[in-house]
């Protein structure tokens, strides 16, 4: 699957589908098998996520090094964090919400307000939590083989959150959450300096958790409406009535 681009309304249907915030979904292992026990699916998902977490823990140092903030094993100077002072790089897929909120304050626009940012972060966390690693990818026209979605990105993203905190410690001697807005931007800019992309990557293909969060929000109907300054609500099911009328202006747009 091409994971290099967030799809836009009007793209060819063959492009990556547009992620949207999900409410928590109870998705059985096989939706067509009404008798399938939900536990079966949950077990598979737990196994795949655990396997992904173990793999990610082994790679955590590498992930951290891409932003120049590999965990230090000793407290060797001012501002240098020690393993005892920061969360351990446990093989976990649970994202550190405090750091993620701080990331959201930087990457998400202020226009949506603090409540909107919190909502966007919550939607992202839900989206991550509900991801089913290596599920079967949509195979429509275009290729004849069956392909699979990526392994669980969450452990890697969690290690990046740890890395951001470490970087904040090194650069500003405090956690990212404790940094002010300008400092957070400085840390994020440093962390993303090596990301060589013009386009916003799709969330699943994002090389950094900050971009995954940003992309997840940017693909939401609400974000599109904000950019268009109109009420269009792409990718939502709604009536055909009034479809020929110019969309109503919103968010400060002028008719």
């Amino acid at each position, binding site marked *: 699957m091409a994971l290099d681009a*967030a799809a*836009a*309304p*009007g*793209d*060819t*249907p063959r492009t990556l*589908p*547009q*992620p*949207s915030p999900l409410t928590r*979904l109870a*998705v059985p292992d096989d*939706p*067509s*098998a009404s008798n399938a026990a939900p536990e079966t699916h949950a077990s598979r998902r737990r196994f795949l996520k655990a396997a992904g977490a173990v793999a990610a823990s082994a790679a955590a140092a590498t992930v951290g090094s891409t932003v120049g903030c590999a965990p230090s094993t000793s407290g060797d100077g001012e501002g240098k964090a020690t393993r005892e002072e920061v969360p351990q790089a446990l093989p976990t897929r649970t994202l550190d919400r405090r750091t993620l909120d701080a990331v959201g304050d930087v*990457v998400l*626009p*202020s226009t949506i307000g603090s409540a909107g940012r919190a909502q966007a972060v919550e939607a992202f966390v839900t*989206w991550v939590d509900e*991801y089913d690693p290596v599920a*079967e*990818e*949509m*195979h429509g*026209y275009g290729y*004849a*083989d*069956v392909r699979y*979605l990526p392994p669980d990105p969450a452990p890697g993203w969690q290690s990046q959150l740890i890395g951001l905190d470490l970087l904040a410690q090194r650069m500003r001697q405090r956690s990212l959450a404790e940094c002010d807005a300008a400092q957070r*931007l400085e840390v994020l*800019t440093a962390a*993303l*300096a090596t*990301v060589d*992309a013009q*386009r*916003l990557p799709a969330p699943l293909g994002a090389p950094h958790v*900050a*971009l995954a969060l*940003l992309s997840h929000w*940017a693909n939401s*109907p609400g*974000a*599109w409406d904000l*950019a*268009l*300054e109109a009420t*269009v609500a*792409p*990718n939502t*099911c*709604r*009536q*055909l009535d009034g*479809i*020929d*009328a*110019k*969309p109503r202006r919103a968010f400060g747009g002028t008719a």
Partner: protein
Amino acid sequence: MKTVSGDIIIIGSGITAANMAAHLADNTTRSITVIEAGRHSTPFRERGKARDRYLAYGENPWSRDHVDDQNALGVTYGFSPNMHVGGLAMHWGGVAPRYSPEDFTTRSLYGIGDDWPFTYEELDPFYQEAEERMGVAGEQGPPSLDPRGRPFPLPPIPVNYNLKQLQLWARNADIATWSTPSAKNSVPYLGRPQCQRCDTCYPVCPSGAKYSPDFTWDALLSTKKITLVTETLVRRLVADPRTGRIVRATGNRTDAGGEEVTIEGKTFVLAGGFVWSPHLLLLSRDSAFPNGLANRSGLVGKYLAGHRNIGGQISLPMELFPGINAQHSLVSKQFQRASYKGKYLRHDLRIWESGVGRNARLRDDDGTLLLGDALLADWKQRAKGATARVRAYYDVLPDKESKLTLDDTAKNRFGDPMPRVAFKDAPESAALRAWQEEELRNLFRRMAKAGGGEVLSLASSSNDIGQEHPTGGCRMGNDPSTSVVDGWGRAHDHENLWVAGAPAQVSASCCNGTLTFVAVGLRTAAGIVKAG
């Protein structure tokens, strides 16, 4: 060993099979048994959730939709591993144009390709039947461009605000456009609701407004008009060497047990599409029919046809709002019906709203990282204006050696070689290709200029991915030496064997083919009824 029987055996349960079964159930008292290698996929009640997960993650919304070791090899663009009840049309986009009259007489009109054994006018009643059974919403185009015997059964999907602006633009370029015919309910129809423009027609409609074959199967099963046997792979047809009549089919269950199955019937219908229908005929070779069944002409698996396209994105000085109904489009048949004085080129034209170039980006033109307010400010600027997506399918005349063969290097669990597909243009198409594609690029440049816009990108179908909306492999014709089945889809060599829909077609026109696959299948169903 399990035995299955019926008067009429339909092998395959895709969109052509479903509509044929409905026609047969309405017009005969003979028992109908449908054999499907796959299983039932995502039931209707689960499709809302399946859509959510598709949008969120790109997950396949169709669970259990293929048989693991049953797949085609080679350039298989337009093919999908779907093998389940309803087939590929469970995830089709619902776009349902007719071919144009010229498609059926290219040899007579232009001296190229081959004529079909019937005309557009003869197919018109079956087009109408297909449109009524599926529920096609359409706008009557200019009659000279869009001939049809009776009105569409449903009013058109409305031309929305974006498409209205694009229609004016096309008109300035002297191109007549109208709402693309679609098997989507513009109004409630046959117990299914009105379209809610969820914009996931492809690959899954959560509301049921888009037609998919399961609706027909559900109706036929609930009234006990057919028997549907799933998870049963037909691996051989067995013909009487003296009479040529098909006496039975044999196969295996595709579940873990793999039990052998014998299928007995009086009439056999292959409705497995352009891959599995010729594949089964070739697999059915024996001492009496060493080249496979229905293959006296040596043309089983040959003349695979399709079309390619040139597509593009054009920025325009107008205001559009991406996402109003992004999968719906304008269509024109103006270039399918043109009279040609010189080089041959026929194509359709579709126009969509597009969000390309108007989405958020990570870095600006200077390479500066954009986050938060800076990203939104940049995005708002990019979101202004308009982008149109355009695409033209042009027809490709098939070479005899555009073919499906058995590949002994890849076998399923039962030891059957899998099909290998290789498309090849007829010499006249190959010679014209570069010129045809440049003509289409020039059309889009001209359209951009007429609207004061700019071509952002132009792209052609990649040469190595095959062709779209593929057909052929069991082509129809009046001459048994140059065709596999007659004009009704009946095998020249086996009087109780019929091949339905896409594989029987002579060519693939230059527009989406599903409606024609079904119409041709319905004509075959009428032939079966008539044959008694």
